[in-house]
């Protein structure tokens, strides 16, 4: 440490761990005082909290914990306990065995389903608004720096296989030296109002939802690829069944609940292998009140997501500005993705 005092931006702390612990203890509150403020049993709260620490230490299994407290919790919290899915019981990688899960008094579900459930209960009072949602995206080309973070975030979120990239960034260079401009045009699926892909599908496997998103039913799609040929934006990809085998650790361990459905680990020959795939505005994220991964990750904040029907929304305002345009407007597809010049 220099004689001039602490380095700017680096907080002055002691060197040993005890100092850190002391800092945390300053913030700590007495659990009994806190719980006394609630209408629930203080002793149960303390017991559960102490055992919860054992669960995180590994001294106690999650299964044993919930078996122990199931009855007491049900008695104490009533319907609130029974109707809320228990986050520890996660379908894909649950820490509680199926049998025990069945025996518990609480409902069972994934974190995602809990979030969606909350969304739904929020919406109950405002059903009129829900009918009017038309998801739209605005991409500011002046802000896009072409870093492809969106492409990467999309791959990470949707776990797309090799050869499938819901989002790409087109690099367009125009002019000759010294007057050269380069524009980066990120291209998700346009979620067209008049989608040619939907028109041509022989089995109605791809269709437009009320909220404006063009969906693909992986269990119905026969893989004829007519929609790919019909798409004016080349936004559709065929899943040939390739995998990133051995290219990174735990490949395939995490799966994406596309369209709100977790299909579990990717298996040979199972849908969506042999199906056509495309961006769906991260529909599973929208459903739980989150922005699509590309929007959330964008370093330049170039992407906006919102309800185009809502005249107070940012996307509605931006999409109506004089800078706004759509790709291939003369195709008559009327995309719900707008760009700002």
């Amino acid at each position, binding site marked *: 440490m220099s004689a001039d005092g602490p380095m700017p931006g680096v907080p002055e702390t002691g060197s040993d761990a005890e100092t850190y612990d002391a800092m945390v203890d300053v913030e700590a509150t007495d659990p009994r005082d806190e719980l006394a403020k609630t209408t629930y049993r203080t002793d149960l709260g303390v017991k559960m909290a102490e055992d919860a620490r054992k669960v995180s230490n590994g001294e106690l299994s999650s299964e044993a914990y919930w078996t122990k407290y199931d009855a007491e919790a049900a008695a104490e919290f009533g319907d609130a306990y029974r109707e809320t899915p228990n986050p520890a019981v996660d379908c894909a990688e649950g820490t509680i065995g199926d049998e025990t899960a069945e025996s518990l008094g609480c409902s069972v579900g994934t974190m995602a389903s809990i979030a969606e459930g909350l969304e739904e209960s929020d919406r109950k009072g405002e059903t009129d608004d829900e009918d009017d949602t038309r998801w739209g995206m605005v991409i500011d080309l002046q802000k896009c720096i072409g870093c492809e973070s969106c492409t990467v975030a999309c791959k990470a979120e949707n776990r797309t296989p090799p050869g499938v990239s819901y989002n790409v960034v087109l690099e367009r260079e125009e002019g000759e030296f010294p007057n050269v401009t380069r524009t980066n045009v990120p291209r998700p699926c346009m979620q067209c109002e008049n989608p*040619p892909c*939907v*028109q041509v599908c*022989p*089995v109605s496997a791809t269709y437009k939802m009320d909220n404006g998103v063009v969906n693909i039913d992986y269990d*119905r799609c026969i893989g004829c690829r007519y929609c*790919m040929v019909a798409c004016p934006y080349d936004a559709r990809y*065929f899943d*040939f069944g390739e995998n990133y085998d051995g290219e990174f650790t735990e490949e395939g361990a995490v799966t994406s609940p596309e369209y709100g459905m977790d299909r579990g680990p990717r298996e040979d020959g199972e849908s969506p292998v042999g199906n056509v795939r495309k961006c769906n505005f991260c529909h599973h994220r929208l459903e739980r009140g989150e922005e699509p991964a590309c929007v959330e990750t964008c370093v330049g904040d170039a992407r906006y997501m919102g309800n185009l029907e809502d005249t107070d929304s940012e996307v509605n305002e931006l999409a109506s500005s004089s800078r706004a345009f759509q790709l291939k407007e003369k195709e008559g597809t009327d995309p719900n993705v707008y760009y700002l010049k």
Partner: protein
Amino acid sequence: MSTKTHTLTGRLGRGRLRIAWYVLLIGVMAVGSYGGYLRLTEGLQSTNLSSSVPWGAWIAFYIYFVGLSAGAFLVSTLSNVFEVEGMHEIEREALFVAIVSMIVALTFVLIDIGRMERLWHVFAWRQPLSVLSWEVHAYLLYIGVLAGELYFSMRRDLVETSDDADGLTGRLAGLLTLGRTETSDDAIETDRTWLKRLGILGIPLAIIFVHGGTGNLFAVAAAREYWFSALFPVIFITSAVVSGMALVALLYVVRARLSHRALDPALLERMATLLAGFIALDASLKVLEAFIGLYSLHPGEVQAWLTIMTGEMWWSFWIVMVGMGWIVPLVLLHRSEWRRKPTVVAAAGASVVLGVVGTRFNIVVPAQLEPALEGLSMGYYVPSTPEWLLSIGVIAFGVLLYTIGTELLPLVPRGEDHD
């Protein structure tokens, strides 16, 4: 001119040639089945298809065989609907070729879709806005019409065959009469009437739905400028007629030679003249299409045409489509005495049948190479080895079906006299 057909079936000549032919077909199918094995185990990874070029050789063969079928069918209507003299002799042959071609075409559709086990979905979930959805239904109806026509055309001979032939041929003929064994003039007249009715139903079905519709499938894909033209379905029909007619002419000569049957030079010349005429029409329409496309200076159109004419596959345009499809047959058929020579007509037919394969590839592939959006990378496609193997296997399967049909069915009218 009288044509004596000695036996019930158009025999391929008993003996060594016949055995060699079956061995060849089964050998080719065995090789092709290796491609089929790869297709089943690796899925579409065994192809050279990609997300930029999602349709390839199998789609090209599919539209080729649909065209061959529609063309052969239209040749059959010359006899049973338009009552062109002397065409009766090739009517059944043409109908049977049309049926086999449809089976081959639909097999190509089956192997091409990503999830083969879901083919039935097209009947479970119809989509009235989809051209493809309509097409699949039209194909089935069309196969039904063809089978019905073939039945009414063959019935009298089937009855006779079941009476005087033993073994498989006789039993099969008996089954195929469907129990209607009467051969009075009235019954024959009913057959001819129904044959004509089905033919009349079949003409719009084949032209508008089956083949015009297949052209439509491409033409409505507005995203691909090269396909997006109202002339496209029309050209599909003309090239279909060209290929179907060429195949029927070729088979007529080959089969007559193999069974030592006398050929009818007048019939031959009529077919050859029609073929030449349709080639000229087909070529003119294609030139028109290319002219308008290039004249528009629209990048999508121009790029597609440049790819076709000067790209890596230039030869499939200039040598296969223009050379074998147009120039060779037109040269061979331009003199009237050559049009009466079986060998020359057969050679012209064979050249066209192969040439139109090039036409179909040039329709499917080049339009997809240019990306729909500026900035995406250029597509690339040549069929992979498994694609070729399986294609050849499927075609050999079709030829096998045809050969068995010629052996077992009275495709050549029994002892009839023609003028």
